[in-house]
Structure formats: structure tokens, C-alpha cells
């Protein structure tokens, strides 16, 4: 590999050609502050428009300061990163940025987790010169079912644009207007709701300020809890337990399953259940559907199309309904675990505890923002009563716990309630990319072959590579599996299917890079992919420690079929646990 040698702050370093000054400096232990720049190493995601100009440094021989995030090291370069000239420039530029940023940190959703706020503190800004005559760029606030855009707070880092276009290939957000009024918005400045947005929330996950935030449903949940006439039950998605602790100062990757259960109980939820239970149920339905379609397909039934694709991820569902409506018969018809949970809770469980569904409130705690939209889908309600009433994110839950003065760090571990709280390791791994298909393989293998699966860990299905594939031997039948996380990667697999070139029998897709652990509702990763990796490790750790690790072995699932559903893919199961998809391709309608 070709290398170059340079000097940064009087220290010499040799780095591979093409390394940025910022990275080389970091290797020397020199931290150059950044704002717009963001890199998620293992996910191959990078944002470097070199627009904020905070990371500028002095390069000998150059007339102007250079952005260290976007300037490559060159042989013999002499760089100075913290001279008075640089410090003054950084401060002045920061004052410019702050002069066009609202000062409502007291009520801002991002306060405490805001990159801009941290940077202002780091740079020691205590006043903004000329503030009294500074006009602010203001824009119409836009609220969609999942995401709020408050562009007054946009600093034009363009991270959301990069996520939406380059990573997700959704194309809902891009830079509009010029100069002082430049901002990021859907085409023709339509509302997000009328754009191609899938509500994957990756724009929110990377927004350094409060310009993009989730629609907060904590207040509604609080009201339901306060209402004595309501029975309020909660379900928690697998990825939440692997990330919630971060918002309480714990090391990334700390599992807080038991503490979370105790906290939810302390918040007043009548029953604390687990979406993992419904994940096991999903495997029963989806796995059965897979085997059925596979067998029909192999026996020559043309109506049985392959590959089958997973359908747990609401961002992904929105994506194919928008961009590939002609492939609507490809994904599994199984509802997402969260919706299966809602459906079972408001039928089977409601009957059990003799509560009318109207008085039963189902809350889901999700790492996801598309779930907020998902619960609002008409097909997921009965006479206007939603199966899942509210969905709140990991971040909203953390804020709620703090509000209630609950010290998560010092809570005893609690246990989920029965019957909808029992799950296997297969349900847990839904939270990481590759997990759903691995869980499906564990069950489908045994159902298909009738043999006991010896090797439970399909490590070949794990990892962070954007598109992965593996062939699993189903006792002589080589089952070809494809995995994609990130919608841009999913698009590649869909294009293959469309052109008839797909070689897969089954494909798992998660809209968010890393899967649910990297979801749009998770604590901010601030561009550190180690955090996402630590969450994945935590998920697999929980799986390893579970006594049962295959969905079909979950005794409560077996009981549910015995008592209520009959068998997987039965008529009743179809009615309650399956859905259909719609053509939602947007026509361009300019509406505000």
C-alpha cells in the first residue's frame, strides 16, 4: 500500500495514501472537532460535504484553511490543528452557525444529545455577537405520522440527505433553496407525508440537532396510564434492551432487560410483555409460509413465487409498497411481531383477562420510528380501535423513565409477565440484521427435516456486510438465503428479483443499517459504529443465555396454538396474524 508521511502538530506520521487529515490526526491522539462529518466505519457510511467548516486546519503553503475531514494527507504536508488562527476561525464559524439556530434548548427533544450543543460547550461560546440584529432563517414546521421536521434547527450538515439518498435510496430529502434559506426538504417542499419517505428514521438517527425528531407519544401513554378505566399493557422490542442503558450512562452493549421490566412496571403498566414472544409467533407463521411456498414451488406450482421476503420491518414494507408495488406478492404476508402482539393481545389476552378491547391499551416500545406509522395503518385496527395503540421509541422511554425519577442503574431485575412475555433466543435475535432469517432457519429446519438441529448458531448469517448470502443445508436441500440491511442494499436484491436473476429462496430485509439495533428510534450513535456492534453482541449474548432458542419450542406459543389459533397458517391465524400490501407509489402532487 502506498503511504505518505506528514507532520501534524510537530508529530510525524505515516498513513496510507488517501487518508484524511482528520483520521491521521486522530491516530496521533489529536482530536479535531467535527460537525457535519460523520462516518460509520463498518457500515461503509460516510458524510463529508465539508460544509460546516468547523474541522478546518492550517496546512503550510495553502492560502486558506483546509477542512480536515475532506482533505487527503500528502507527502511532506505540515499541518497545524489548533493554532490561534484555527481556533479563532472555528469560534467565529460556530458563532455564525449559532446565530441562525433557535435557543430553545430547554424544550428541545435533542437537548443533552445534541452535537451542536456539545460543540458550543467545547468551544466555550458564551454569547453570540450581533445576535440582536441577526435575522433567523425560518421554515414551516412539518409533522408526519412518525417524524417532525423543524428546519429552523437545521444546520445543513446534509447527513439526513446522505442517509436518505445514498444509503437508503429513498430520495425523500434533498437540499432545496439557496444561500441563507438553503435547507433540506422533500421535492417542491412538500410535507414528508406526501413524499416517498418510508419513516425508517435514519435521518433522525443521524441528525446532529433537533431539526429531525420523532413524534413523541409519551404524553398519550401517560394519559392512558393515569386513566383507571384502562388496562395498559406494554411490549418491548428486542433491540431496546440492548441500547436503553446507553441513555443512563451505561457502556454500549449493556443488556438491561430485567431493569427495563422493573422500570416499566414502576411506570404503572399493568402487564409488561415482550415483543420477543410475538417474534416467536412470527417465526411459526413465516417459517410455515416459507416451507409451504418452497414445497409448492419445488413441486412446480407457478403461483408459489420465490424468494419469500421477511416482512417484520415497517420501513421496509413502506419501501417496497412505494418503489416495488408490482412485487407485493413476494414478501411474506405475516404481520410484524409488534402487530401480531397487538392482535393477540386484543383478542386472546383480552378475553383471558375479560377486558373489552376498547379498554385495553397496547403500547409498544420500539427502536423504530416507522412503527409509529405502522400502528396508524387502517388494516391494523378493528372498528377504529388500533391493535397497537401507541408506539414509543427507546429514546422516548428513557426520557419517560427519567421523568418518573426512576434510577434505572440501581433497579432489581424483573421478569416479564406471562403469557405474552415468554420468549426464546430466536425471538431475541430479531433485533440484529440476519436474526430473523436465522430464527426462521432454526425452526424451518426442524419442521422440514423432522430432525434435531445440532448447530443452533448460524454465524454465517451474522455480520455487518450490507448484502450477505449463505446456503444452508436443509438435509439435502440447499436453501439459499440472502440478507440485506439498509434500503439501498434491499433495492439491489429487489432489482435482481425484478429482472429474474435472483437466486435466493428466502431473503431478510431490515431497513436500518445494522438492523433494529441501529434503528431510527435508538439512542444516538454519534457516528460511532462500535456502538452498533456492541448492541449486536448484546443481542446474541441474550440469545446464548436463553434456555430455549427455537421459536417452536416456546411453551406459550404451543399453548396459544392449542387454545386459540389451531395451527400455523390456519384460517384464524391468517385472519389475525397476516396482512396484505398496497400500491403506494407516489404521484407528484404538490400539497402543503
Amino acid at each position, binding site marked *: 500500500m502506498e503511504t505518505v508521511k506528514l507532520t501534524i502538530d510537530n508529530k510525524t506520521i505515516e498513513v496510507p495514501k488517501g487518508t484524511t487529515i482528520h483520521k491521521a490526526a486522530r491516530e496521533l491522539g489529536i482530536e479535531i472537532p467535527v460537525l457535519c462529518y460523520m462516518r460509520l466505519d463498518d457500515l461503509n457510511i460516510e458524510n463529508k*460535504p*465539508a*460544509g*460546516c467548516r468547523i474541522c478546518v486546519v492550517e496546512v503550510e503553503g495553502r492560502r*486558506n*484553511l483546509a477542512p480536515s475531514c475532506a482533505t487527503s494527507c500528502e507527502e511532506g504536508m505540515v499541518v497545524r490543528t489548533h493554532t490561534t488562527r484555527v481556533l*479563532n476561525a472555528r469560534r467565529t*464559524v460556530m458563532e455564525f452557525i449559532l446565530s441562525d439556530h433557535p435557543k430553545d434548548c430547554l424544550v428541545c427533544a435533542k437537548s443533552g444529545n445534541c452535537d451542536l450543543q456539545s460543540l458550543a460547550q467545547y468551544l466555550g461560546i458564551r454569547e453570540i455577537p450581533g445576535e440582536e440584529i441577526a435575522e433567523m432563517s425560518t421554515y414551516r414546521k412539518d409533522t408526519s405520522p412518525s417524524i417532525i421536521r423543524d428546519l429552523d434547527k437545521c444546520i445543513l450538515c446534509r447527513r439526513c440527505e446522505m442517509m436518505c439518498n445514498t444509503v437508503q435510496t429513498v430520495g425523500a430529502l434533498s437540499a432545496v433553496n439557496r*444561500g441563507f434559506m438553503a435547507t433540506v426538504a422533500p421535492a417542491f417542499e412538500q410535507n414528508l407525508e406526501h413524499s416517498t419517505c418510508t419513516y425508517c428514521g435514519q435521518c433522525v438517527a443521524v441528525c446532529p440537532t433537533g431539526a429531525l425528531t420523532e413524534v413523541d407519544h409519551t404524553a398519550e401513554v401517560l394519559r392512558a396510564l393515569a386513566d383507571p378505566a384502562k388496562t395498559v399493557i406494554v411490549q418491548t422490542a428486542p433491540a431496546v434492551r440492548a441500547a436503553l442503558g446507553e441513555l443512563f450512562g451505561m457502556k454500549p452493549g449493556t443488556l438491561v432487560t430485567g431493569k427495563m421490566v422493573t422500570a416499566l412496571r414502576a411506570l404503572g403498566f399493568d402487564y409488561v410483555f415482550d415483543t420477543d414472544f410475538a417474534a416467536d409467533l412470527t417465526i411459526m407463521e413465516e417459517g410455515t409460509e416459507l416451507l409451504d411456498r418452497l414445497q409448492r414451488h419445488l413441486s412446480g406450482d407457478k403461483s408459489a413465487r420465490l424468494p419469500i421476503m421477511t416482512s417484520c420491518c415497517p420501513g421496509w414494507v413502506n419501501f417496497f409498497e412505494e418503489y416495488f408495488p408490482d412485487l407485493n406478492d413476494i414478501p411474506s404476508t405475516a404481520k410484524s411481531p409488534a402487530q401480531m402482539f397487538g392482535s393477540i393481545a386484543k383478542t386472546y389476552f383480552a378475553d383471558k383477562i375479560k377486558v373489552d378491547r376498547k379498554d385495553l391499551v397496547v403500547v409498544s416500545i420500539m427502536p423504530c420510528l416507522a412503527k409509529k406509522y405502522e400502528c396508524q395503518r387502517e388494516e391494523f385496527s378493528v372498528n377504529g380501535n388500533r391493535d397497537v395503540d401507541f408506539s414509543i421509541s427507546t429514546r422516548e422511554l428513557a426520557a419517560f423513565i427519567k421523568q418518573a425519577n426512576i434510577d434505572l442503574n440501581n433497579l432489581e431485575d424483573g421478569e416479564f409477565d406471562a403469557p405474552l412475555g415468554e420468549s426464546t433466543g430466536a425471538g431475541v435475535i430479531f433485533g440484529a440484521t440476519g436474526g430473523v432469517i436465522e430464527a426462521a432457519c432454526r425452526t424451518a429446519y426442524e419442521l422440514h427435516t423432522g430432525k434435531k438441529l445440532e448447530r443452533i448458531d448460524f454465524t454465517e448469517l451474522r455480520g455487518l456486510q450490507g448484502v450477505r448470502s449463505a446456503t444452508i443445508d436443509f438435509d439435502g436441500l440447499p436453501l439459499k438465503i440472502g440478507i440485506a440491511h439498509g434500503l439501498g442494499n434491499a433495492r439491489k436484491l429487489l432489482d435482481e428479483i425484478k429482472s429474474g436473476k435472483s437466486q435466493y429462496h428466502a431473503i431478510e430485509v431490515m431497513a436500518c443499517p445494522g438492523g433494529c439495533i441501529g434503528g431510527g428510534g435508538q439512542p444516538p450513535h454519534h457516528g460511532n459504529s462500535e456502538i452498533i456492534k456492541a448492541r449486536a453482541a448484546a443481542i446474541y449474548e441474550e440469545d446464548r443465555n436463553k434456555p430455549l432458542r427455537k421459536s417452536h419450542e416456546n411453551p406459550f406459543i404451543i399453548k396459544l396454538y392449542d387454545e386459540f389459533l389451531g395451527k400455523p397458517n390456519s384460517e384464524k391465524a391468517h385472519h389475525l396474524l397476516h396482512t396484505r400490501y398496497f400500491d403506494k407509489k407516489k404521484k407528484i402532487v404538490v400539497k402543503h
Partner: protein
Amino acid sequence: MAKERIQIMVCGGTGCTGDQGEALLDNLKLELEANALENSVNVVKTGCMGLCSMGPNIKILPDNIIYTGVRPDDAREIVSEHIMKGRRIERLLFTDPGSGEKLATEKELSPHRKQLRIALRNCGIIDPESIDDAIAHDAYEALATALTNMKPLDVIKLIKDSGLRGRGGGGFPTGIKWEIAFNNKSDVKYVVCNADEGDPGAFMDRSILEGDPHAVLEAMAICGYAIEAAKGLIYIRAEYPLAVSRLNTAIRQAREYGLLGTNIMGSDFSFDIEIKYGAGAFVCGEETALIHSMEGDRGEPTVKPPFPAVSGFREKPTIVNNVETYACISPIILKGSEWFSSIGTEKSKGTKVFALAGKINNVGLIEVPMGTTLREVINEIGGGIRNGKKFKAAQTGGPSGGCLTEKHLDTPIDFDNLIAAGSMMGSGGLIVMDEDDCMVSVAKFFLEFTVEESCGKCSPCRIGNKRMHELLEHITKGKGVPADLERLKNMCHVIKDTSLCGLGQSSPNPVLSTLENFREEYEAHVTVKKCPAGKCKDLMEYFIIAANCVGCTACARVCPVGAISGERKEPHVINPEICIKCGACMEKCKFDAIIIQ
């Protein structure tokens, strides 16, 4: 009559065309027909002749007589007097603003005396819509020379040796740019002509494209041959309809003649040109922004390196040169690098086209050797300051440049001297200001332009320039404090130092150079709250000198807001609380009793 064919050249530049030039052209033809002269007198619509403020202009050949300010109705007299009787029409001759003399021929004309036309060589001389006319004036001869007698590297060496530097603003050596693109081996390369001229008051490129489009097409083909590219793109703003139409005509004609397309002049070299339209964003004159705009993306710059010559349009090696740069290429090929480098100063060779504007008598387009002084440009070519006022400053380089003052009048104008003086060559706008101009307002004016035209990508340009503009506004309103000047200076330095592209890096220049050269004017605004030039409305007060006032009441009667009171035959007074500073009273007063304080 038949001994030499007479030609009437009618200026077809945008200014003259816009002032009934077309009607003049039609009338001339009708008059000639009426006198059965249509076969012996040729009427030609040319490109800009450069005397824009005096148009519409015509030139009669072979007499070489120039008539200015010609109205359509003058056609009859021109034909009956000049053409038929050989008598000059005195009233249509150019009047020298200095001497009051009537000047007739191009050689006599004061604006032309100091000029040397290389880029504008054919403007105003040929019919820009006729390729035959262009060829008769040596068009495509340089391309033929290059294709038959030179290797690509010979062309590059010649351009390098000539010392030609980019005329778009940066002044990067053209030959070196071509060499970089040549050395970057690639299956596909592009030659781009940057015709996104956007400086307020600048029309050099437009005039070349309107007056001599083949000069640009030929040079792009030569560049294509030199760097081994087969595709040329002209990025032109859609607001230049005449230039666009003449370019389209020229491209069509060149294709018909086999001067563009496959196997040009029977050689192995193939080259064609396509026009790409810009929507008129100033920032798209920056080469990376221009390329993104051509690619269909948002027109905003990206970090260099990589330079376009390495990775440009569609990530292929791309040469982006300005119109005027291309217009210099063919003469260099034909006359040699030594000829070109003998013109100009040590590090700036050749000539430069300037669009003269502002408080100057001869507003228009000029081309002078590098090294000509500002004094020569203003006094000799420009005919001095209008209304005999005093010269105060000249802004070069448009909104990205700075102002030159009296002390710079005898500095030879070239790339490096202008930068040393705190300004820049830019694309060649030259705006002259007189004693009535407030330099704080001038800086504010230019900054307003950059605030409008910033793409918004980087924060110093997007927000910093806006803040600077607000502060200047504050100062011109009399609300500034002395500390604001230091703040202003710091903002200038940081914006220059940290902005992403040339637009932001140069946008503080007008502020910085006026702060430097007219500090006392700024100080007057922030300390005693006065505008020395009397331009800032908020800082002036109308005042009646009691000794001069006869009490005629004319001022009180004309005042629209009733701010003036006083008894008849008694001195009047203006109430500054009510006065809206419209100036009507001062205009009305016959006794010079009203002054601005």
C-alpha cells in the same frame, strides 16, 4: 460605386439590439432597396462593437466611419447623404467627452486608441451568423494548423509558452491545466466552456459569443485535440438568448462544413459540442458547481482536489476554461507563443477584456494589453469621469473583487498587481465610482449580491455573509459602534479563510478593501454618524441656511409631509422628526438655501 463594395456594419450586441437596432437594420435595407443600392451595399449585423453606452452604433466600411446613437429614422439620411453623396453626418459622429471634438474613424476614436483586440478580434467586424464570414477572417485556420502540423503535446507546449492564464477569474495557467488533463489517461475526456458569466455589469463573454462564436468553437476543438477529448460542452446561462441562438447557428454551420463532428478535416480527430443551459446561479461559474449542475445535480461546489482536470464531468478528466480564454487560443496558434507573450507584463501575458461601467463617460467593452494602467483605462479609453466629478475608486473583479483607489491609478493592471492591491482580475468587470459614492454602501451592495448568490452549502458563506450584510446595514443606518469595524474585519478574514469555494473565499473582498482604503468613511458612519458622501439616507439631515433663505415658501409647498414651516419672507426651518429626506425641497429651492448635513 462599383470599385469597392460598401458595407454597413450594424452592431448586433444585446444593448444596441435592445435599443431598436433591429429596426435600424431593417430601415437601412429598405432605404437601400428604395434607391436600388441593395446589390452594391451590404448590411451586416455584427457582434458588439464596444461603445455600448452610445448605441445603437454602425460602422461604414471601407471609410471606417463610426456613427453612434443612430435611430431607425436616421437610415434615410445615412443612405442619401453618406452612401450616395459621400458626406459625413456630423451629428451622428462620436463626441469626445474630454475635448468635445467630433471623431469619425475607428483609429481616431479615443476609446479605441489604447486598445488591442485579440479575444474581440472579430467582434463588430464579422457577421456572427455567417461561418463564411468567420472563415474569411481566419476562423478554423488554427484548428487546421494544429491537426496537420502539430501533435497534441506541441499544442500544449505552445499554450504553456504563451503564458496564457485563465480569464475567468483565477488566472491559472491554461497550458498547465491542459497538460494535467492530457496526462490523465482516460477513455473519455471533456472540454467545457464556462459561459456562465454572472458578475453584475459584466458582459465580456456574452459579447464574444454573440460577436464571434466560431472563435470559441474552434478553440474548444483545439483543446479537445490537445487533451485527446472528443466531446465539448458549453455551459451557458439561459438568460443569454442571443448568444445561445448564435452558438446554435455556429455549431450547426460548423457541423455542415465538417469542422465539428467525425474526422474533422479528414483527420482522425473527431469532436462535437453540445450546449448545456444554466439557470443563472452565480455559483455555477465555479467549476465544480458548474460540473455538478451539468450532471443534473444541485449546482454547488465540492472540495478540490480532485481538480476537474483529474476528475470532472462524470468523473472524467475535464478542462473547464472561460469563453475569453478560448477566444485567445487561435491567434496564439497562428501567430506563435512569442507574439502573445510579448504582450502584457512579466507574469500576465496578452490582453484582457473589461466591461467598463459606472460613473464613466464611455461605458462599454474594451480589450487592453495587460499592464495598462487604471488611469489610461479611465481617462483615455473611458473618457474620464462623468459630469467632471472626481474619481474615487474602481471595483475590479465584480462582487469578488476589491476597490482600487487613487493611489492605484498608475499601477499596471495584471493578475498579480490586482491581488497585491487587495482586489482581483475576476472575469473583467470594472466599475468606476466617483466622489458621490459611499464606500460603505458600495461594499453593502456587492455583499448583497453574494448573499443572494451563495449556494448555502458552507456555513461561513451562507450565514457569515448574511451577518456581515446585516452589520453593514446597521452601520449605514447610523446604528453602528466603533467596535463593529473590528468585528467586521474579523468576519471578513474568517469567511475568506474558511469558505468552501471561490465565491465565499472572495466575497468579503469588497468589504475588506473598502475598510482598508476608506477606513475614515466607515469611522464617520460609526462615530459621528455621518455619511461623507451623503448617500446614506438615515445619516443625513436637510437643513435650511437662514442667511440664504428668502422665505419664498416654495419648499414648504413642495414638501409632501409638511416638515417645513416658516412665515412668508422669513427664513424657514425643516423639522427633522417629520422630514422623510426625499430631497424635493432642495430641488425646488432657487437660492441654494437648503443643504444636506
